[in-house]
């Protein structure tokens, strides 16, 4: 196979951007993606088989048959989980990765989110740390992501957002939903600062694609009219258009190959026909999301790196985190449902920081439209789970409920981790990821506080009944998975440097949520995208021509 300058593993939020930036700079690039290239045709509007409700399987991969993981429960019992089962902590397996089917909130982290340890101090039992980079370092790249991928919304009424040079490229979706209007008035009465959530979704025609048509099959689904912006319909087509980039789908990376000098020489992978192939490259970019990226590094064992790449000090796979979602649901006398998608549209950032006695917090927003089966599991604790009363509750309240929730920024825990399982292997014989650990107790304290604020918001909005939703102590990860290849200046307490390069190997980069030191009180995707632009700029700047050997 022809030698290339860079092989990018994973065509998601991070990998898609790196591929495009490098290809446009003249690098020859190969992207290996384990999933398929799905399109708007694959929308399907299937409420039991999509990326959010997976009782009949994952809509955008991976499949159940070939990609098991091992999960260690809090009581120490182990079980093998299928990709569509709870506890698997799935993101996606397809071109675009999570960006194909996400809800598409496009948050910039706040300045404080990069300096969590300095501001709050580290609680006992956590590895809370500052990032080696600041918001100011990333600001131009946040802007680039907002304009190249495409973001709508209006953060100007939010006094807490970090300084920015330009407004968002598209206005918010209009008209606002009924929920939006009810919640906006209530937040203003409380003295809070509501605004339109920034979303990677076209509110007007943009980048040659149409505006959102406001349907209810949004989060978890491929957009039927291609108005949701991900790497699959922006940067990846641009990368391919340069002529310098080749995308190989249904290719599963086995390991990064290391030469006798301790540099990466390429990737061994199984192609769509399950044949083992080798792609040599000058640079290897790992963008498989926090769980699979850690797994790949740990599975890349060699004489010089017996514990895997980047793992000299046992930090690869550590600090797995996501978000501790918490909030409240309220019931209303009037109908709140207006069938106007995507649903989530209004947020407040009044409680991200500055909460007395707490280290951080979360933004709060209304939830995406809840399809009928999703509402089944969102009853108050006293409603029976079956029978007449349950049915009656569904009938009476489905169209008269609002849910407010927020992604609480988690205190990283060293023992919340990804390992490779010593016994269980996937379809190709590659050791699978083994997940274990729990949330930090302080994270749950923050959850209780944020859930109270959510409840307060709903009560002010006129809810006649409310109840809180607070997560359990188990491991976090899921679609917001992050933290497993921490970015830092000290090689002894991190995996990659400030430009995402693995400390002890000068031609391997990790570019995805893995490098996040902390995960913000926000959906992380725009930060992943900004870091991908930031790391790409560094790679291009430092490039001194081909240095690897075939």
């Amino acid at each position, binding site marked *: 196979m022809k030698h290339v300058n860079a092989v990018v593993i994973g065509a998601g939020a991070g990998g898609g951007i790196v591929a495009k930036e490098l290809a446009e700079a003249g690098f020859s690039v190969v992207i290996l993606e384990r999933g398929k290239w799905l399109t708007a045709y694959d929308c399907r509007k299937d409420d039991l088989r999509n990326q959010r409700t997976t009782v*009949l399987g994952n809509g955008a991969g991976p499949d159940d048959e070939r990609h098991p993981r091992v999960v260690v429960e809090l009581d120490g019992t182990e079980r093998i989980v299928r990709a569509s089962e709870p506890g698997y902590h799935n993101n996606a397996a397809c071109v675009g990765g999570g960006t194909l089917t996400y809800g598409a909130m496009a948050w910039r982290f706040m300045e404080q989110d990069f300096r969590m340890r300095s501001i709050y101090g580290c609680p006992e039992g956590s590895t809370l740390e500052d990032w080696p980079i600041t918001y100011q370092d990333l600001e131009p790249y946040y802007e680039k992501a907002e304009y190249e991928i495409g973001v709508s919304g209006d953060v100007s009424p939010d006094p807490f957002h970090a300084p920015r040079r330009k407004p968002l490229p598209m206005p918010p979706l209009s008209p606002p939903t009924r929920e939006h209007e009810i919640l906006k008035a209530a937040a203003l009465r409380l003295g809070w600062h509501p605004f339109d959530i920034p979303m990677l979704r076209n509110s007007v025609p943009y980048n040659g694609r149409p505006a959102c048509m406001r349907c209810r099959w949004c989060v978890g689904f491929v957009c039927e009219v291609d108005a949701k912006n991900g790497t699959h319909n922006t940067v990846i087509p641009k990368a391919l258009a340069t002529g310098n980039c080749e995308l190989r789908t249904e290719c599963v990376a086995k390991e990064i190959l290391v030469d006798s000098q301790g540099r990466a020489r390429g990737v061994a992978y199984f192609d769509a026909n399950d044949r083992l192939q080798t792609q040599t490259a000058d640079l290897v970019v790992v963008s498989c999301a926090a769980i699979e990226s850690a797994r790949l590094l740990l599975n890349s064992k060699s004489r010089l790196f017996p514990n895997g790449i980047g793992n000299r000090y046992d930090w690869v796979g550590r600090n797995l985190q996501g978000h501790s979602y918490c909030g409240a649901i309220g019931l209303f006398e009037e109908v709140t449902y207006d069938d106007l998608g995507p649903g989530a549209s209004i947020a407040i950032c009044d409680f991200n920081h500055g909460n007395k006695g707490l280290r951080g917090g979360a933004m709060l927003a209304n939830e995406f439209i809840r399809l009928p*089966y999703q509402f089944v599991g969102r009853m108050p604790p006293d409603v029976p789970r079956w029978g007449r009363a349950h049915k*009656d509750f*569904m009938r009476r309240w*489905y169209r008269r409920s609002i849910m407010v929730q927020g992604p609480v920024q988690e205190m990283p825990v060293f023992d919340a981790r990804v390992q490779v399982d010593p016994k269980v292997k996937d379809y190709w014989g590659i050791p699978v990821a083994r997940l274990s650990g729990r949330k930090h107790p302080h994270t749950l304290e923050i959850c209780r506080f944020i859930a109270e604020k959510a409840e307060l918001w709903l009560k002010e909005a006129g809810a006649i009944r409310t109840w809180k939703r607070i997560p359990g102590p188990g491991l976090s990860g899921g679609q917001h998975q992050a933290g497993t290849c921490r970015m830092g200046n000290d090689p002894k307490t991190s995996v990659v440097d400030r430009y995402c390069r693995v400390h002890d190997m000068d031609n391997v980069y990790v570019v995805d949520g893995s490098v996040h030191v902390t995960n913000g009180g926000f959906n992380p995707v725009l930060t992943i995208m900004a870091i991908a632009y930031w790391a790409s700029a560094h790679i291009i700047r430092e490039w001194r021509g081909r240095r690897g050997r075939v």
Partner: protein
Amino acid sequence: MRKRGKSRRRFLAAASGAMVALTGCGAARPWRFFTAEEAETVIALCEQIIPADQDPGATDAGVINYIDRHLMGHFRRFQPVYREGLARLNELCRQRHGRRFAELKFEEQTAVLESLTGDLKKFFDLVIDHTMQGFYGDPRHGGNRDAVSWRMLGVPLIPVRGREHYDLTAIKSKEAGT
């Protein structure tokens, strides 16, 4: 990949079909997985979970069809759970009332279900979840007949917007035939 998965699925479906044929009870049997007696029990169970009132219940919505269909597909791993769970539930009812679950009065059934513990309760939890899926989920999966639950909730039905999936080749061949 899915090639492999599918062909295995097809093989298993074919194999169990062959078994049905061999045991000689295949012809009159309306269900893919359940025996007639099991089906009676499942229908009664689902109706307990979502009973008919002014709106249709699980029986009217064809929830059993959803469960039966997916026990031969995505839920294949639950086949033994259903087979054993249904047998044990009926055994329990025979001990307590001398009759099978489906033969009990509605209130008696409710009382039995409320008293379940251990593995039988776990089995019932699984049936609850599958029933909710079959009742509130998309009709394409075999339940929610005529979208009865969506009508009950007042959710607009899925509109046809020109991207509904249809097989262009099938239309062509039909045209060619006429």
